[in-house]
């Protein structure tokens, strides 16, 4: 494998339905049942949201965490396409697919969460440029479109010359084939426009998500509330991009019984201590500058959650990844990268849920069964579609199959 810059990608040749896939389908069905309940009973029927806690699990996890963990898309695009570092080309396609599906599910989650789902398109006509949420919405919408465009070459690669539509649609075969050939040629020349746009849009809305709660200085716990929130969100999104790619590679290799691209993944992990270190430096510097460190040993749920986030999500993996030995051992790499992923996820949950302390609330919000079921259903749906996509399209690199004993 060494020396070949252009890893070929191909559809995965592995049975689609395994017991795990049926479990995912089960989660999706339960989630769907609660979605139906939400549209019959209203948000109050399935969620624990209140007038003091208008945002819950769906915003904290499906949206904020989902967007952060989709950062593998733009970080690998920057590394492999903008810096033309071909060595990392192999990870761009799976990262792009994850981002595409991730943002699709962010939008689905939002659709269910907002009270008037059918008005979800309103920001396109009613512009409100003072609103941070408006900026985030526009960026996410545009970026999702860019991601779909970036995915088209994989569709072309798979189907050009092989278009075979079922039944009466077969008469369109020739037309679709021509369309794919045109798209392929066009995108081959102009893809750079979308690649750069993807990185710019990502930086804009990753930081935008952090700005969302800057407007609520009296509600967010001081361990997290800082005018630097947008900057910290951006830095943490950049830091979590590669760990997420590594984490997914491990999942895919386990689930699809494929060999790991350890050489690429270990190299990718070289960047993480640097990126995570920058994030850590700003986060700690901000804490000291604002004097908010006095709350560290408050002993509250908030201070404990902050300590877990910083120690196990930032400091420990940072120290681990400094070691070459850890980066080159599959187990060490997996654990360290997983800690980064969980740390950033916990940060988003902390900012939006744990650290959100509005006045006049009689009790702290905790998600309901229905909210958890819909979130679980969305994540299962994402994994299901990921599996479907890598089975249909050339996303994952060609590697030797691990022999089953």
């Amino acid at each position, binding site marked *: 494998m060494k020396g070949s810059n252009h890893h070929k990608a191909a559809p995965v040749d592995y049975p689609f339905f395994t017991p795990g896939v049926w479990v995912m389908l089960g989660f999706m069905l339960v989630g769907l049942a609660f979605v139906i309940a939400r549209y019959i009973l209203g948000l109050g029927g399935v969620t624990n949201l209140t007038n003091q806690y208008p945002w819950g699990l769906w915003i904290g996890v499906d949206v904020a965490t989902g967007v952060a963990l989709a950062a593998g898309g733009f970080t690998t695009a920057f590394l492999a396409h903008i810096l033309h570092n071909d060595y990392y080309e192999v990870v761009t396609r799976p990262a792009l697919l994850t981002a595409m599906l991730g943002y699709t599910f962010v939008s689905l989650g939002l659709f269910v969460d907002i009270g*008037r789902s059918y008005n979800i398109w309103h920001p396109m006509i009613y512009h409100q440029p003072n609103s941070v949420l408006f900026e985030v919405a526009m960026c996410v919408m545009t970026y999702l479109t860019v991601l779909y465009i970036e995915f088209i070459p994989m569709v072309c690669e798979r189907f050009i010359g092989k278009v075979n539509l079922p039944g009466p649609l077969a008469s369109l075969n020739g037309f679709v084939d021509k369309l794919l050939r045109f798209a392929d040629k066009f995108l081959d020349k102009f893809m750079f426009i979308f690649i750069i746009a993807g990185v710019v849009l990502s930086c804009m809305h990753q930081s935008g998500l952090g700005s969302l709660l800057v407007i*609520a200085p009296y509600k967010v716990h001081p361990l997290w509330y800082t005018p630097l929130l947008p900057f910290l969100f951006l830095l943490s999104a950049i830091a979590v991009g590669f760990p997420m790619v590594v984490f997914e590679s491990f999942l895919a290799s386990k689930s699809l019984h494929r060999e790991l691209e350890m050489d690429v993944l270990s190299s990718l992990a070289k960047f993480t201590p640097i990126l995570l270190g920058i994030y850590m430096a700003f986060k700690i510097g901000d804490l000291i500058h604002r004097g908010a460190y006095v709350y560290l040993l408050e002993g509250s749920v908030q201070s404990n959650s902050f300590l877990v986030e910083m120690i196990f999500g930032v400091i420990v993996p940072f120290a681990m990844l400094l070691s070459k030995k850890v980066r080159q051992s599959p187990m060490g790499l997996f654990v360290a990268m997983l800690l980064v992923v969980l740390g950033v996820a916990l940060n988003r949950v902390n900012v939006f849920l744990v650290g959100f302390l509005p006045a006049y609330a009689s009790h702290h919000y905790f998600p309901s069964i229905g909210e958890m079921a819909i979130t679980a259903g969305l994540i299962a749906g994402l994994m299901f579609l990921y599996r479907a996509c890598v089975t249909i399209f050339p996303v994952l690199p060609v590697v030797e199959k691990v022999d089953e004993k």
Partner: protein
Amino acid sequence: MKINRRNFLKITGIAGGSLLAGREKTAEAKETKEDFGDKWGCLIDTTVCLGCRKCEEACNKVNHLPPPDTSFEDYTVFEKQRRPDAKSYTVVNRYFKEPDAPDKKKEPIFVKVQCMHCNDPACVSACIVGALQKLPEGPVAYNASKCIGCRYCMVACPFVIPAYEYHNPLTPKVRKCIFCHEILEKGGLPGCAQVCPVEAITFGKRRDLVHLAHFKIRENPDRYINHVYGEEEVGGTSWMYLASVPFEKLGFQKLGKLPPPRLTETIQHTVFKGFVSPLAFYALLGGVMWITRRKKKNDAGKEE
């Protein structure tokens, strides 16, 4: 309240934030430019209010709100602290001047709660589609047909006022006091101010109300503490309060003078002014991409 010290630290932290220091100045400049004196407002004198709940009843009637769970003459509701919700734009809460005194000697203080109609409202700044608007006359109004139901206004409101119709599956609305703006436009008074039997609610131009409040404090220094709540909180509000005890004892939060939208809007508009930064970033990345590609081509050429 432990919240106070925390918020104090937060605000000083913000003011000291080197990155934002320059921006804050422009925010202050913008603030002083606009005069809110001509806007409508109300001054609530909590030392006068008897807790009759007539304002709650009138509000319910003029705004065609759903019937209440118990009658407006039910005074047992005072046993709990209530908040405005999807069915009521305003509620009256009871506090005691000396909460620790024996029951018979307890002197009640009643506090009406509703939207404060901020001069620089966070909900309006947050609203993704502009469904919430600060009308030129002062009220913060809501247009349900634009609303997508994201509830960011509720997250943003420093007073935790907007409520949501969580049990309406398809057409839920954000519910909050709208300062009876349609009645005001016809020359009438807000439902609550109109009905109040003891005139605890004074309606007028904000400038006059501020003068009146300070006049009352000056003339009756024993009756009032020297603080008009809402005069400066979060940049000033259209609704303001007078009280005989510190406001923190009456369920009011201690809030800073800076309107929250000045934080987000200055970040937002500095970063995106004329779309210069995103475009510059785009150009920079394009340049990097072009250079790395050329370098790659050159390297490939040398090898051959």
